[in-house]
């Protein structure tokens, strides 16, 4: 408590090295990874190099920092222009003790010495990071095959390499009282709306938590509607997707330690779009989008429609289909809802186990699951053969959604709908549609209506929502991010 209070104040460096070191030692008590290397500089004065052992390059430290410092006279050391005389690229003066502590934990090397009330901080972070690889969960056919990694700096450099423009900006901040996670908001100046940037900055900076283990908690803490199953930000590992978003005026949220980044603001329909929609012919893109939206509807409604029809409204089935349906249901001892929940739950278990297990075992789980569902369940007369087809189609449809978050949301609400359909038939389905629609139109992503451009209707935007018109007609940026510059290109 005492430490927290003191760290929140601006503590100035003292000219007495002992006072400074007492404070730093108290802060890094029981931190064996933080090295406090004592050196004797000119005129037998004491100095300290303080750094996290595992996060820096020792060779460079000794060659470019310690050695020149030790060779300097006291006059040179006290010189206000000292940092400019050292061959250090990212060095600067620091005057507050709490800033020094924070920079050391960030991976900087700090040098303090007796008689001076300033410290030299040098960024020499070199820690191991994963090579840039293709994201496992977001594949595409014709786009680039690189993905983000866990290191924030590398992720920023990936974007910088793709967008060679000084207007690509990043606003940094720290989140987490205990972990001090570094978060950055990326945007293109002149396209992104400053009000949205400020809103997002305020949203993130106001988060009060110990630390962020991944981007998921950050996303949840930023969400206005905490109880909604629907995602309000697009989570992606693909730099090309982020690039496309930035060009539309969207903001990207990057978290150090997470290969996933968030894009905002987004609409409900953005979760049904994939990069291949733009990299391939417009006709194929349109076809894929319509297919995904239909798949979304199937993923939510198909099992419920089966339950509704078999439980209450069998008369809506054409006679030719009604007979085989009745025959397949005749030997099943359970009511439709039990049959449906049994099968759907089994499918979900198979899916979950396939995700958790290594790839080579995951494949065999699929085979076992396929056998159980496809053959054994029907033979044992636990479920009707028609329902097996329905379960299979529903499962495939739910996996067609490019966004994992949206796919999961649709799968979960399907269970609610199934129970309503079992309890109230078509009335339950009507109730669900009504509530779902109300929920979707009520939600907002970063203050922008989530269900646009359908509601509120923006006719011009529809050309890149359900359908995707040829690229030549996509001259205007979408309105959802309220871009400052509405027209793409040089505006000539």
């Amino acid at each position, binding site marked *: 408590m005492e430490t927290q209070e003191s760290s929140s104040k601006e503590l100035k460096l003292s000219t007495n090295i002992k006072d400074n070191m007492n404070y730093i030692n108290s802060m890094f008590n029981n931190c064996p990874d933080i090295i406090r290397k004592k050196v004797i500089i000119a005129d037998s004065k004491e100095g300290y190099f303080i750094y996290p052992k595992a996060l820096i390059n020792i060779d460079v430290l000794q060659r470019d920092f310690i050695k020149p410092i030790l060779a300097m006279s006291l006059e040179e050391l006290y010189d206000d222009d000292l940092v400019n005389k050292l061959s250090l690229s990212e060095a600067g003066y620091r005057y507050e003790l709490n800033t020094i502590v924070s920079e050391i934990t960030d991976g900087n090397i700090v040098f303090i010495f007796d008689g001076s009330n300033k410290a030299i901080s040098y960024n020499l972070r070199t820690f191991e990071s994963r090579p840039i690889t293709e994201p496992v969960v977001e594949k595409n056919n014709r786009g680039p095959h690189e993905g983000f990694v866990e290191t924030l700096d590398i992720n920023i450099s990936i974007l910088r390499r793709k967008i060679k423009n000084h207007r690509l900006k990043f606003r940094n901040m720290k989140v987490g009282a205990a972990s001090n996670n570094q978060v950055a908001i990326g945007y293109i100046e002149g396209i992104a709306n400053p009000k949205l940037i400020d809103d997002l900055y305020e949203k993130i900076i106001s988060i009060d938590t110990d630390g962020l283990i991944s981007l998921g908690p950050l996303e949840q803490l930023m969400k206005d509607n905490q109880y909604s199953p629907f995602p309000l930000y697009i989570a992606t590992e693909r730099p090309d997707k982020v690039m496309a978003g930035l060009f539309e005026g969207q903001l990207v949220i990057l978290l150090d330690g997470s290969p996933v980044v968030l894009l905002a603001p987004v609409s409900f329909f953005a979760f049904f779009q994939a990069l291949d929609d733009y990299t391939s012919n417009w006709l194929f893109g349109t076809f894929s989008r319509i297919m995904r939206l239909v798949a979304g509807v199937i993923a939510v409604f198909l099992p419920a429609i089966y339950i509704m029809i078999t439980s*209450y*409204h069998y*008369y*809506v*089935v*054409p*006679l030719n289909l009604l007979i085989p349906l009745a025959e397949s249901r005749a030997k099943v001892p359970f009511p439709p809802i039990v049959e449906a929940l049994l099968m759907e739950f089994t499918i979900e278990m198979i899916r979950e186990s396939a995700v958790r297990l290594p790839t080579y075992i995951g494949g065999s789980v699929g085979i076992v699951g396929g056998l159980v569902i496809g053959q054994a369940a029907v033979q044992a007369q636990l479920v009707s053969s028609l329902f097996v087809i329905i379960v299979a189609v529903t499962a495939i449809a739910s996996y067609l959604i490019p966004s994992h978050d949206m796919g999961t949301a649709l799968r979960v609400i399907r269970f609610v709908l199934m129970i309503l359909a079992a309890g*109230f*038939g*078509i*009335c339950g*389905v*009507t*109730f669900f*549609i*009504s*509530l779902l*629609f*109300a*929920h979707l*139109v*009520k939600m907002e992503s970063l*203050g922008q*209506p989530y*269900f646009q451009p*359908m*509601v*509120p*209707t923006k006719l011009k935007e529809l050309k890149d929502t359900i359908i995707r018109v040829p690229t030549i007609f996509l001259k205007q940026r979408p309105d959802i991010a309220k871009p400052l510059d509405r027209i793409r290109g040089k505006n000539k």
Partner: protein
Amino acid sequence: MKNKNAISSNQLIFFTVASQVGVGIIFLPAQLAEIAGHDGWISVLIAGILFSFFILIVAAFMNRYKKKSIVEINRLLYGTYLGSIINVCLAAYTIIFSAAILRMMVEAMQLMGLKYTPRIVLTVFLIIPSIYTINGGLKVICRYLHITVFIGVILAIYIVLILGRIRPTYLMPLGEAGAKSIFNGVWTSIFAFLGIELIPFIYCEVNDKNHVVKKVLIGNLISIIIYISVVISTTGLFGEEMIKNLQIPLLSLARVCYSNIFERLDLYFVTTWVMAMGCVLRCYLFSGYYGAINAFNIKTRKWVVALIIIVLVCVISLEPREFIYLKERTKALGWIGFSVIVFYIFSYILSFINKRGVSR
């Protein structure tokens, strides 16, 4: 902080159509056939045009006070006491109307197969989405009302499906019913166009007030087209004699639709229409709630008012024992609704004498 009730004038089109069409259309073709025979559609057209004039007058009235709701205007025009009594009466009207719509939705649900489910269960079940929408404010309600486009498309599909079976001879000769019958039909049709009496409740929340008249008139025009389409198609399909004996001609229209893939298309139609009635319910319920919190000048704990209104609506909706009583109540509410519009016209005239609060 964002005003969750602020809407654009474009959204007013949806509000107008949704509040007018959802309920009025249910009994209209049968009632008109009884009074004006196969010339009912002419009565609808005249009533629609008449309502356009009412809209102009009501808009002119509201325009004199710009940023004030009808509740504030009543206080200015009639004084604190009388004005408050009028406001409570207006709120009561919207609440009782909401209850009638809710009951109609329950009846529709029972028609769809839930005969043995207790009414109270269905009532609670049906009001939940409305509560959720109203909680989001007028902005969310108007966004929700976009669903009327989908409902309109469904209605058009059903009409297209029976188009080939419509007999133009059922609609001939034009004007056979005579001027008196057509005029009587106008009276009946007027009730179907009710819904615009809610505009003064929400007028102050519209951002671009200069376009209000135009947008409400567009909404009214869409309602006229829908009503005429339904009246012509049902009369042309069943004939005036048969239609008189049909309880709900619109449902009968859906029943005769046939498709090779789906059977019993009426089931889907009733489902769609329950949603349409839900839209009307939201419009009236919100107006009742908004009117009540303004009438009693409630700033905090608005949820208590909302809760009281919801309970009242549910209880009142359960009161009519049979469908026939509900029909009677709807008729009475039609008269009250029309009286509300007459009251607005009277207030407009009065506003030239008592100029308190009139915008310059």
